[in-house]
């Protein structure tokens, strides 16, 4: 054998390559021209009519109020702050929707594979109904046909004087901690991160060496012990504010607006139907041998499901589940149609009209959704590759 000869340096300017470059150059040129064309039109349109442009409006006074805000917001706040209010509202709605849809969806998936004929059938009916009706229609149904028809504040449906439901929303007692409440929140968040990090580290170590430290105890420590200690040490006091009828409406307590309730029900039920199907196919995707091995050992159906099938099904379930979460987050935009103050309603609606700056407003809205999509995709990739990639 002769000594290995290395390949010659590629001749760059083959005619084939030149042709490919020309095609691409023409393509890029066309694209650039198109962008220039649109850009020129737009600037000309804006200039000729003296329309304002740029993001300067974000610091201007907004002048309107919103019904739901987790950040301090008054009509004196800026458009920029209104944007962040909308962002937080959309994120809160997404998060609650994801919790609801996941809980319902897993229940449905399990019901679908249940041996109980009635339950399996009902789950099928539920799934087929909710996934084949447009989400917007479902939102309208919940909002206009159901919640809208609830009685007014004076004739509310009251449960034990604590939970109140009327056409102004769902009122619940609100836990109240005094000023040091944030310390507890911080401790809770820190505990959660700590438990997560410890579990991941232990798992990685185990994957590498076959031995890993025990880690389950980090969870109770992180989630309960730490915040509880903080609660006791900081001397905070906990009380509940109970809603009561004052003037026209109930006051105090925690209020879930009908818009939010309807959005949550609509999104949760719609996406749960999809998740139900995903969970079902995940469960059915687990090798039959696994079930057989477990039943041969004498495990009952429920234990098999809980200990053997579901953990493995998760690997099949998570990628499409991520897609559904993404779809849920994007679909919060439809809640604008039932007056839930999220991005479309606040940014692409009021802000756009009051400032007249369509380009900027819609760009902002799109940027928000893109960053949400990217974040969810990133988190799910992380889960997929770091946590679930062991075994075969």
């Amino acid at each position: 054998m002769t000594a290995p000869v290395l390949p010659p340096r590629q001749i760059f300017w083959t005619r084939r390559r030149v042709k490919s470059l020309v095609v691409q150059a023409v393509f890029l040129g066309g694209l650039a021209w198109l962008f220039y064309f649109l850009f020129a039109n737009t600037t000309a349109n804006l200039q000729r009519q003296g329309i304002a442009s740029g993001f300067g409006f974000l610091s201007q006074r907004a002048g309107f109020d919103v019904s739901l805000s987790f950040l301090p917001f008054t009509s004196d706040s800026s458009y920029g702050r209104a944007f962040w209010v909308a962002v937080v509202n959309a994120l809160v709605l997404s998060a609650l929707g994801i919790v609801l849809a996941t809980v319902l969806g897993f229940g449905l998936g399990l019901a679908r594979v249940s041996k109980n004929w009635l339950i399996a059938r009902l789950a099928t009916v539920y799934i087929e109904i909710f996934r084949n009706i447009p989400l917007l229609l479902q939102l309208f149904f919940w909002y206009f046909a159901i919640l809208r028809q609830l009685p007014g504040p004076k004739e509310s449906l009251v449960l034990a004087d604590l939970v109140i439901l009327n056409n102004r929303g769902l009122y619940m007692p609100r836990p109240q901690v005094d000023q040091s409440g944030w310390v507890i929140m911080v401790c809770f968040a820190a505990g959660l991160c700590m438990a997560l990090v410890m579990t991941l580290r232990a798992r990685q170590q185990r994957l590498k060496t076959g031995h890993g430290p025990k880690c389950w105890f980090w969870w109770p420590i992180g989630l309960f012990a730490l915040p509880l200690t903080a609660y006791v040490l900081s001397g905070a006091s906990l009380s509940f504010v109970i809603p009561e009828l004052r003037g026209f409406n109930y006051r105090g307590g925690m209020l879930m607006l009908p818009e939010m309730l309807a959005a949550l029900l609509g999104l949760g039920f719609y996406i749960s139907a999809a998740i139900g199907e995903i969970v079902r196919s995940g469960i059915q995707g687990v090798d039959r041998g696994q079930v057989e091995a477990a039943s041969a050992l004498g495990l009952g159906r429920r234990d098999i499901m809980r200990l053997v099938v579901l953990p493995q099904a998760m690997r099949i379930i998570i990628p499409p589940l991520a897609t559904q979460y993404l779809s849920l987050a994007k679909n919060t935009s439809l809640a604008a149609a039932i007056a839930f103050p999220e991005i479309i309603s606040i940014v692409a609606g009021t802000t756009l009209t009051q400032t007249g700056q369509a380009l900027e407003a819609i760009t902002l809205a799109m940027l928000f959704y893109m960053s949400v999509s990217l974040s969810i995709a990133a988190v799910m990739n992380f889960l997929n590759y770091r946590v679930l990639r062991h075994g075969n």
Partner: protein
Amino acid sequence: GTMDDIKARGHIQCGVTQGVPGFSNPNDAGDWTGFDVDICRAVAAAVLSDADAVRYTPLSNTERFTALQSGEVDILSRTTTRTLNRDTALGLNFAPVVFYDGQGFMVRESSGITSAMELDGTTVCVSAGSTSELNVADYFTANNMTYEPVRFEKADEVLAAYDAGRCDVYTSDLSGLAARRLVMQNPAEHVMLKETISKEPLAPAVRHGDDAWFDIVTWTVYALIAAEELGVTAANIDQMKAEGSPDVQRLLGSSETGTGEWVGLDNDWATRAIAAGGNYGELWARHLGPDTPLKLARGLNELYTNGGIQYAMPIK
């Protein structure tokens, strides 16, 4: 310019609401009718000699300004309040005010509220992206009251929300309140509060930067008002054209010195505009006045001679 486009196209594109009784609303046959619609028809009659040469584009609050800016509509005749911001930053030009309005509140009679100062802690239904939304915020802040806004983009939905009891209060322009009350389940159960919290001069708008077209719309509106001042109606127009006073003759183009050349049309432009639906007062009476379901009083919209502030610039 816009005029050339319209002539080439053969019709005017008119931006209207998505349905407000009295102002612009499709009738049973699906044809648009109303006060704002008739303004467009008058312009079309003046420009194209055909009051029916109009196509209507229903626009939401959000869409209305871009639709005008982008040339999708030639004229925005859509209960739009004239403000400094819209006149400048949004690149609009407003024709004369066709309706002097103000924002008010409507509540259920059973609530026992009689004054806007009692509205603290209420839930208020308001149209998103409107001046009402801004006014109500200012009003409650100024009076140290709190409220919870329920904001829909479509006027229909704001109304339905209030009607179904989602809100204690419905706020909008007084004319809008009157119009919308008609379509409630039980109009009699609702009362309007006496306070007017803002000035809402509603005017047709055109794009900034096309002065010729702006002039035509402006003076068509003035012609309608002038016709009422001069007693010219759709019924007597032919007669008036022949035997009216010099002012009338000038308006209707039958005098020597015609006005057509100045606005870039023929001398009969105003005649056609008035004949299309009548003078300003006739439009009012037909769509908004006491004989209509809206039963609005003319108030500020009376001619200046009758105690109002409607006043046509001299057509000379």
